[in-house]
């Protein structure tokens, strides 16, 4: 009798291969994609109301994107060989595209868009600061101090194009992760054409929720009143996206239950036992139904401002937890049952090991630290000239 194993597992299946860190990775890239989509709402789809969150969303995306490769590096048996993905990418493997999609998105989309958006501020700060800070800003100008109105118009046009390219790029950055799972015919919990779409929509949900929460937190820290028109609009888009995401997940569930193929009985048992808390309680009830109910209520009835803020806060936090639970249920759930459909194993998260809870917590906190640093370096809020008064613009 093997501890933690119930029934029969193929002997090599007992130990899980993809751990907590592999749950974290799609969560982080999901936040990147979602935050960027929110930014593109303003830029491309001209939803003016969310303008106050535009720069914030870009910085959020960058902070999380910089951390994204780290859980993968900690997971690899030989992280020092990761360059091989750039040297000899195997074009039949979805995973091989990671390195290229990541670099493309980081440089040609995100960094370029941030640079174009912030250029005027960067040049101004290069001219007005001193010492080491000045060196940093001068480097960021890439040697050009041309911020004439006509140049800025061109920046705006190019930025628009970059955002337009950025939307499918963001879809690719996160959608390919869904494909990595969805294309594995050996695993019936993962194998479905819906997987990339479900991943993408849940990414958008978590990204929008993250930016919403960061906006609320930032305004609180700066003791500035929240632009409620902006917040209400962000919450509205969160609601719509969540409805689509929930429908897709329910579609998958209903489809599986209806078709009841050979894997169904085994997977059903797994959901009712090992995944009961993380899937039914955490992901579906607390992480989806409760936030949806709260958000739906705010759409149907005009609550007072402070009540709305509290409801958005609660929905945002529950959503972030729920989407994490979704990643957990996909990655870990897919490895808890045997491919013989005759048994189950268990996953015990270790604490201070390379792939344990401690590095996972550190990796989740790191993007926020980077975010704070980025906000200091590239303030999302412009100061009104002369009055020194900060605006929420």
């Amino acid at each position, binding site marked *: 009798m093997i501890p933690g194993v119930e029934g029969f597992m193929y*002997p090599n299946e007992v130990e899980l291969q993809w751990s907590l860190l592999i749950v974290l990775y799609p969560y982080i890239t999901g936040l990147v994609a979602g935050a960027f989509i929110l930014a593109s709402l303003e830029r491309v789809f001209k939803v003016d109301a969310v303008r106050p969150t535009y720069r914030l969303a870009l910085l959020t995306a960058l902070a999380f994107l910089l951390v994204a490769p780290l859980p993968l590096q900690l997971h690899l048996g030989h992280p020092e*060989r990761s360059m091989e993905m750039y040297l000899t990418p195997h074009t039949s493997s979805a995973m091989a595209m990671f390195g290229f999609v990541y670099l493309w998105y980081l440089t040609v989309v995100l960094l370029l868009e941030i640079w174009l958006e912030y250029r005027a501020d960067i040049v101004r700060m290069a001219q007005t600061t001193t010492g080491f800070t000045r060196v940093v800003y001068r480097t960021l100008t890439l040697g050009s101090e041309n911020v004439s109105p006509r140049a800025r118009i061109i920046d705006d046009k190019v930025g628009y194009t970059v955002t337009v390219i950025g939307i499918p790029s963001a879809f690719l950055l996160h959608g390919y992760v869904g494909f990595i799972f969805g294309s594995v015919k050996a695993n019936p919990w993962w194998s479905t054409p819906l997987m990339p779409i479900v991943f993408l929509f849940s990414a958008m949900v978590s990204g929008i929720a993250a930016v919403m929460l960061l906006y609320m937190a930032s305004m609180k820290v700066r003791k500035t009143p929240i632009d409620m028109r902006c917040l209400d609009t962000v919450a509205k888009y969160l609601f719509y996206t969540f409805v689509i995401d929930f429908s897709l997940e329910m579609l998958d569930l209903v489809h599986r239950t209806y078709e009841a193929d050979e894997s169904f009985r085994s997977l059903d048992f797994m959901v009712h036992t090992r995944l009961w808390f993380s899937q039914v309680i955490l992901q579906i009830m607390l992480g989806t139904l409760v936030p949806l109910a709260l958000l739906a209520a705010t759409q149907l009835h005009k609550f007072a401002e402070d009540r709305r803020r509290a409801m958005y806060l609660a929905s945002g936090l529950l959503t972030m937890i729920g989407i994490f639970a979704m990643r957990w249920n996909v990655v870990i759930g897919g490895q808890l049952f045997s491919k013989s459909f005759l048994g189950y194993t268990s996953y015990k998260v270790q604490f201070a090991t390379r792939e344990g809870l401690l590095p996972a917590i550190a990796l989740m906190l790191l993007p926020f630290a980077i975010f704070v640093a980025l906000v200091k370096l590239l303030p999302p809020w412009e100061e009104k000239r002369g009055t020194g008064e900060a605006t929420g613009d």
Partner: protein
Amino acid sequence: MDISRRELFVTGGKLLILASVGATFAEITGAAPPGEPYRMADHWWGMLIDIDKCIGCGSCVRACANENHVPAGFFRTWVERYQVEEGRQPHVDSPNGAMDGFPPTARTDLKSFFVPKLCNQCADSPCVQVCPVGATFVSPDGVVLVDESYCLGCRYCIQACPYGCRYLHPAKNTVDKCTLCYHRITQGLTTACCENCPTGARQLVDFKNPRDPVHEFLRKNKVQVLKPYMATEAKVYYKDLDGSVR
């Protein structure tokens, strides 16, 4: 030294018999006659497993572990025991992969049998398809191998294998699996598991060798592969595999 004519004939005859046995054996197993270099293009390897001959002794599991220094708790090959009761899911076990055989089968009233398992050396291998860097591959002679010096240890291939035949080597941190004893078959020997199987339940076969018994075997017997709906073009064929086998 004086040799009598009789001695000459006897010794010469022995040598002749030995040489022809060796040559015939080489022909049958498709091995290159000694001296000739091994040409990958001349071979397409696979295996035949006869369920009705397997006695669950575990000799194959031990032999493989010895030959390939397989770490304890991980398996390049293993044997499963099925006990099938009407109208119920089969009861399956594989204590330590059957390294030490099996404890006595408790119920004598059920249909029960042993199923040796190993890498199916798929020609259209899903594990090779997902490797991001080309560390695992199908060799030109049909063996799925891992380049230990190139594997990242991402474990995508382990997830993609429908048969559970891969594992991460705990000391090397690279993926490991059955190599069909590539180091043996390329020098005219058979795999460690086939060598040590006392009943001939496991047989190495070379589909490109026209004299290999596999061709007649496939023509005359009903054979299956594991999980045929996965369409992996598995090259390990089972004779008399029961429908309950997973």
